[in-house]
């Protein structure tokens, strides 16, 4: 007898509906899976056989042929175990009460363990979201995946724990409650705050601008000046995630198996890869590519500590993702697309010994050494960084002082306000923040009055700024103006923006 049910396969983050056709006929007992299965799908045969037996059903000693259609797409992963097992059970007539047409709009996903229970799978959220897009109305999946998919609207999700339960359910012998759509996402609070950072007023101000305009930022400072501490707290002033953003993040995290038990990723990701990391881990890779750090940092912050210690090829690989906000990985089996709209924050020392320009310690490096050290970062990469700040080591009295400084909540209020202004302004242009402005849009939205133009031109010759910094200054000035809810860019906005480009000449030394 023949049975036909549906499942889904992911290529990158893109879903493809897969028809699972099971045909059981008389003949020498055999179990064959065709339709470009990879090793993990082929191995499913053993799991299915044991799982069916241990669930109290009989495994047919007949000729079983399973076809995964369309046959030209490579299928991978263990999520086909469950639909294949159910397909066999339908084909041998264990599930008789049902109307086969319900399977037109239903998909099954899940991995089997030998005792007939369903195991958690990776990428459940991505699969369900894609399935919904492809017109599916109902998803049957392992109970352990139920938490993460609860935020999807208008999709009937049935959590299942064993094969036996599924058969009973499909035979209408028992009732299983659907996963309830969860509208309110409980967002976890951060355990840190900007008020914990003493002094560093300029750095805090710079990070406020970074957060408000979604700019990339490079911090240069001596060891122990608090670069990492500041970078981590950047999260606390970023605007709250929208539901769409949460879904996007969770989707990527679920594909790469990074998801924890509780399901959703409700905080902005903060990724800090170590500087020895290979290139495939950063951009995504593998025989069947999984998202890399840049995609895991989607809608969040990618932080490179000790920027200069990273492998040069790794740094240069960041160039395109920083511009395109997405990455395509080409493999023989297809093109895998992952989004990677992240804020890039990096930190480094000013010189090999770390104390160039420090107040107390003297730098022991020679000019040549400093030059060599700074040369590790290429011009085009600096090009893509809007804000450069120098972090100074605070004096010990400062750290102990009890002087109150602003907490994250107040800063966040201003950031949210500035973001709202930007959203309204760029509604028609398909961008969200000032950092995404293209050259054409810059000239539309960042108009300067005469006084500011003169100041900017003078600053260029006098402070020896590099020309490529020009647009960056305009973008940052736009953000500063937005923070003050000012419609036009004024001279003091431009002047402040120039200060965040001042390190240019140091890096070009």
């Amino acid at each position, binding site marked *: 007898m023949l049975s036909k049910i549906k499942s889904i396969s992911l290529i990158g983050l893109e879903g493809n509906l897969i028809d699972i056709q099971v045909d059981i006929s008389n003949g020498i007992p055999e179990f064959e899976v065709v339709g470009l299965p990879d090793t993990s799908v082929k191995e499913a045969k053993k799991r299915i056989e044991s799982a069916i037996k241990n669930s109290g059903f009989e495994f047919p000693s007949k000729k079983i042929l399973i076809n995964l259609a369309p046959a030209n797409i490579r299928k991978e992963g263990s999520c086909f175990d469950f639909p294949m097992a159910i397909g066999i059970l339908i084909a041998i007539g264990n599930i008789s009460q049902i109307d086969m047409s319900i399977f037109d709009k239903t998909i099954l996903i899940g991995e089997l363990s030998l005792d007939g229970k369903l195991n958690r799978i990776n990428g459940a959220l991505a699969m369900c979201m894609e399935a919904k897009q492809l017109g599916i109305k109902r998803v049957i999946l392992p109970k352990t995946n139920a938490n993460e998919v609860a935020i999807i609207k208008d999709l009937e999700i049935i959590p299942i724990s064993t094969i036996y339960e599924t058969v009973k359910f499909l035979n209408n012998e028992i009732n299983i409650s659907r996963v309830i759509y969860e509208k309110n996402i409980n967002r976890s609070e951060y355990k840190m705050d900007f008020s914990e950072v003493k002094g560093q007023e*300029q750095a805090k101000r710079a990070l406020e601008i970074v957060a408000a305009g979604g700019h990339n930022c490079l911090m240069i400072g001596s060891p122990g000046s608090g670069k990492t501490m500041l970078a981590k707290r950047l999260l606390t002033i970023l605007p709250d995630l929208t539901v769409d953003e949460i879904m996007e993040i969770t989707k990527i995290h679920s594909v790469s198996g990074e998801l924890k038990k509780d399901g959703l990723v409700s905080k902005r990701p903060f990724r800090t890869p170590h500087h020895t990391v290979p290139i495939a881990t950063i951009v995504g890779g593998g025989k069947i590519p999984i998202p890399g750090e840049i995609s895991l940092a989607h809608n969040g912050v990618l932080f490179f500590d000790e920027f200069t210690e990273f492998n040069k090829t790794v740094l240069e690989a960041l160039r395109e993702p920083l511009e395109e906000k997405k990455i395509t990985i080409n493999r023989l089996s297809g093109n895998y697309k992952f989004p990677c709209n992240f804020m890039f924050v990096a930190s480094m020392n000013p010189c090999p010994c770390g104390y160039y*320009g420090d107040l107390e310690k003297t730098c022991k490096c*020679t000019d*040549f050494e400093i030059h060599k050290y700074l040369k590790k970062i290429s011009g085009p990469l600096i090009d893509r960084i809007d804000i450069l700040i*120098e972090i100074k080591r605070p004096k010990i009295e400062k750290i102990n002082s009890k002087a109150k400084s602003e907490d994250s909540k107040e800063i966040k209020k201003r950031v949210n306000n500035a973001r709202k202004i930007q959203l309204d302004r760029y509604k028609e242009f398909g961008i969200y923040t000032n950092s995404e402005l293209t050259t054409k849009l810059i000239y539309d939205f960042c108009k300067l009055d005469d006084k500011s133009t003169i100041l900017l031109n003078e*600053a260029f010759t006098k402070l020896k700024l590099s020309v490529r910094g020009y647009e960056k200054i305009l973008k940052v000035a736009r953000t500063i103006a937005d923070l003050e809810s000012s419609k036009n860019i004024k001279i003091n906005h431009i*002047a402040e923006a120039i200060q965040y480009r001042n390190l240019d000449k140091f890096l070009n030394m």
Partner: protein
Amino acid sequence: MQRKLIEYADTIYPEKLRELKNPPSRLYTCGNIKLLNKKGISVVGSRSNTQYGEKMCIEFTKNLSEYNLIIISGLAIGIDSIAHKTCLKYSGRTIAVLPCGLNNIYPKQNIDLAKNIVKEGGLLVTEYDDNTEADSKKFLERNRIVAGLGIGTLVVEGGYRSGTSVTAKITQELSKPVFCIPSSIENKKGFITNKLIKNGANLVTNVEDILNCFENIKFKKKRKSLNKKEEKVIIPKELKLIYENLEDEVLDINQISRKCKISIQEASYKLLLLQMEDFIEELPGQRYKIKEK
């Protein structure tokens, strides 16, 4: 630029070079050849200098060129370039002795500097014909001309086993004085200067120490045309507060905002304006100080 070939027999061939053990048979020059027979100090030092070395080099070269002394060096990176650059900045004259032909200036990053030297009335000298390329042997040969052209040699910084020590040695052989700027014992690049001092070279802490060594020569200080009148700095009202705070000490932007009780935004705006008007200058580490006029 006009190039000129000077043969050993020419009258313009500098007398000082004839005193060398193996004087160059001819000199290829580019620029102002009158400088060859004027009094100058050779300034030499390490190619990889420290910040201290840079500071000292600038300090001494600046003052030397104010006494109308020509600065002679080797156009290498590090101390050599700093000496040339400082000299040009304070409108002094400088001679660069090349280890290569005039068409193959080495190191390449100093080609612009070489052009500037000629443009500002300085001179490039070499004993190699136009297309010769630099190599390590020529660096040492070049050093004898550097030592020969000056009335004395100022050693700024130098590591163990460096070309600097060769120049100093040749200077001593010519019985000319060697001046050394002392360094911390911990400073690797202070090895040569400290060693030379130990062996009897002149320890100098200011330019007058150098000038006093030449009893028969009178040095005239250049008349400064710049400060005709003691101009009072006129600071715009709104920038005055920051300026006054900077008068006593060097401050970074955070300290300025705290002291003047203004926001970072305001401070960075005003600091930029002050910078643009040349009232203050920025130091490494984003610290600011009053610019000396």
